[in-house]
């Protein structure tokens, strides 16, 4: 058969790599959602977004250490506490950053790019000083270590299922928040026309701060999920930021659906190609395909059918 694999082997490979791709998809999606909301509303390209993810990952790490040392009886449940803490910590630092720096740089995209890049370097050094330059890994509780055996060649890891489920609920939550809540209505108004939103009485400064905090908080949750598939180091965020930008550019910033579809196709293509080719070849092929599609559709995958 193909490349010496039998048909049932190929099916197993396909299923397992797809699932590995799903975990990657979860991280990409959570990262891209935060980035897309912040970029869509404020036009801010947050180069430090990857560091917010790592902030969430370190929060999860600290949480696992604290639980294993002082409250080992509850260790099995630490991950869920860590997710909430990662959201709160990354979100709070994000709001602080918006208040202290970003709000002075609106409508100056180049300056924000440089400033947030500087922030990312500062955060990396902070991580290095506090946690050391070496990678740290979190310990998983026993019940999250195993895998579901679908048949003798196909195995689905339990922690992967949890990450995918978590992502599903967070995406659903953001979707509901943006489209159904009063806050979401104001966010969308500011996204479309900042000065007009102010002129109908929306407190744009406060909405900006909350939105930036939400974007960073979701990146923190991505970081908590990230601890399941990789080890945390001060610079690990940088490897993800480029892919995240790719997802946002490919999906278009106007719709959540575009972001989801784009994160899905990119992560799946990466994961399945990586098995057959080398990692860098997979990256090259995905990049070329995305560039090709963006040349035909500069507005991204999905865009709204509306006059502007």
């Amino acid at each position, binding site marked *: 058969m193909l490349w010496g694999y039998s048909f049932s082997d190929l099916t197993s490979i396909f299923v397992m790599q797809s699932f590995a791709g799903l975990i990657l998809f979860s991280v990409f999606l959570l990262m891209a959602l935060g980035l897309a909301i912040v970029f869509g509303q404020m036009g801010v390209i947050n180069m430090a977004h990857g560091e917010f993810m790592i902030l969430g990952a370190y929060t999860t790490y600290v949480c696992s250490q604290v639980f294993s040392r002082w409250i080992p009886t509850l260790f099995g449940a630490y991950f869920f506490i860590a997710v909430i803490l990662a959201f709160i910590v990354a979100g709070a630092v994000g709001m602080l950053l918006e208040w202290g720096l970003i709000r002075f740089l609106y409508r100056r995209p180049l300056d924000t790019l440089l400033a947030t890049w500087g922030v990312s370097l500062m955060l990396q050094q902070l991580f290095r000083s506090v946690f050391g330059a070496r990678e740290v890994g979190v310990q998983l509780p026993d019940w999250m270590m195993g895998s579901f055996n679908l048949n003798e060649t196909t195995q689905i890891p339990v922690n992967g299922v949890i990450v995918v489920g978590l992502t599903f609920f967070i995406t659903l939550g953001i979707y509901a928040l943006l489209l159904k809540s009063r806050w979401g209505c104001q966010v*969308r108004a500011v996204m*479309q026309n900042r000065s007009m939103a*102010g002129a109908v009485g929306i407190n744009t400064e406060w909405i900006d701060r909350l939105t930036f905090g939400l974007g960073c908080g979701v990146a923190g949750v991505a970081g908590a999920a990230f601890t399941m598939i990789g080890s945390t180091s001060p610079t690990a965020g940088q490897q993800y930021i480029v892919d995240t930008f790719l997802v946002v550019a490919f999906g278009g910033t*106007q719709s959540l659906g575009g972001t989801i579809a784009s994160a899905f196709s990119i992560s799946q293509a990466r994961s399945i190609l990586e098995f057959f080719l080398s990692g860098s070849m997979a990256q090259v092929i995905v990049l070329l395909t995305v560039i090709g599609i963006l040349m035909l559709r500069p507005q991204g995958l999905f865009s709204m059918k*509306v006059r502007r």
Partner: protein
Amino acid sequence: MATESIDKISAVTALPDITLDIKDLHVAYGASEVLHGVDLQVGRGEIVTLMGRNGMGKTTLMKALIGNIAARSGNIILDGKDITHLPSWQRVKAGLAYVPQGRMIFSAMTVTENIESGLFVRGGRTIPQKLYDLFPVLKELGERRGGNLSGGQQQQLAIARALATGPHVLLLDEPTEGIQPSLILELARTLRKIRDETDLSIIVSEQVLSFALDVADRIVVIEGGNIIHQCSRAEADGEQLMRFLSV
């Protein structure tokens, strides 16, 4: 000569019950000053039409009032409160509402959401029935996206959105632009109806003379960043006004 006539007229038409008081307002884009000290008072329930050719400062005055452009000097006082340096949303909270040139509705949001966007500032939750009484078509179009409405429908939506903020003073910048003649007449009637029902003060900038004469209690002509002529509707001289408007 122009200055004399202003003094005489403002002495005649100044109302005891002033809602909006603009004092010596200077506005500049960077180094180039566009408004050179505008003084204008608007009484409660008064409709003032701002006339003038393109580039004379009408839109700039509107933007400065709502806070999209900062004033260089001077004061804007609304119901006795100085709002000159407040951000837009706080001016809306103080009682200003704005319908910009080109309407600027939120095109990707539904009609209902567009109106609701004006409710937040006062914490309102449901759209008042009186808005639908004024613009029944907005109820039928509720779920349509704002950007897919016709120009006239968008204009009604923009006005409804502004009224949802519960204003004392409504600013309308060139509302007749791109609207068919029959609807222009309707618009004048609607504006006067809103004023009669709610005692709202309205400043409307306009280039269409017939609309201005239809809707206004007082006509103010702005040229080169200064107010050069004012008259009440009764004493308005169409030919004289035409001369101010012709190039």
